[in-house]
């Protein structure tokens, strides 16, 4: 049975309130942009899922198609694509990210 990588991504996006597609892992980021984004997510104090695209080239390509967004990292909140490093950092600096995430976790 061949892999349905888009369905995998859909499942990840739907089943995780806070999700990041990144280079490396949350404990060992392998790119400055991914690292900065992970740092912001940590500041939110919530559990979040990380998916390392470097370990999965097929998924790496598929993620960019799935969100129609050309770069990694990519952050999803409550099933919705929120943006990459610049957007996540900008939203967090403006105080817009935490309320969005709080709402996703049902507060």
């Amino acid at each position: 049975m061949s892999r349905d990588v888009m369905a995998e991504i859909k499942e990840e996006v739907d089943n995780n309130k806070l999700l990041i597609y990144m280079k490396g892992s949350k404990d060992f980021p392998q790119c400055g942009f991914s690292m900065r984004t992970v740092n912001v997510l940590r500041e939110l104090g919530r559990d979040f899922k990380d998916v390392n695209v470097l370990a999965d080239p097929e998924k790496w390509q598929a993620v960019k198609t799935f969100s129609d967004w050309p770069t990694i990292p990519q952050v999803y909140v409550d099933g919705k694509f929120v943006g990459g490093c610049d957007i996540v950092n900008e939203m967090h600096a403006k105080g817009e990210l935490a309320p969005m995430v709080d709402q996703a976790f049902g507060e």
Partner: protein
Amino acid sequence: MIAAEEIERRIREAMPQAEVKVVDTHGGSDHFAAEVIAPEFSGKTLIERHRMVYATVKDVMGGALHALALSTKTPEERGDS
């Protein structure tokens, strides 16, 4: 590899009213940061604004261009940090 001027040119072509500044952040002609101040961004979300800019370099993104950090503002937002 791509030149900062080329990226600037493309963005200006797509958004004629924009002020555009692109800098090479790593010195290797493949990681850049662009600051774009344009009235065309008015009323658009950050994702929409970034998509507008990414569209101008779609053909080179991931190839000659590895990374393009973005700051997107309207003229009214200029001066916001």
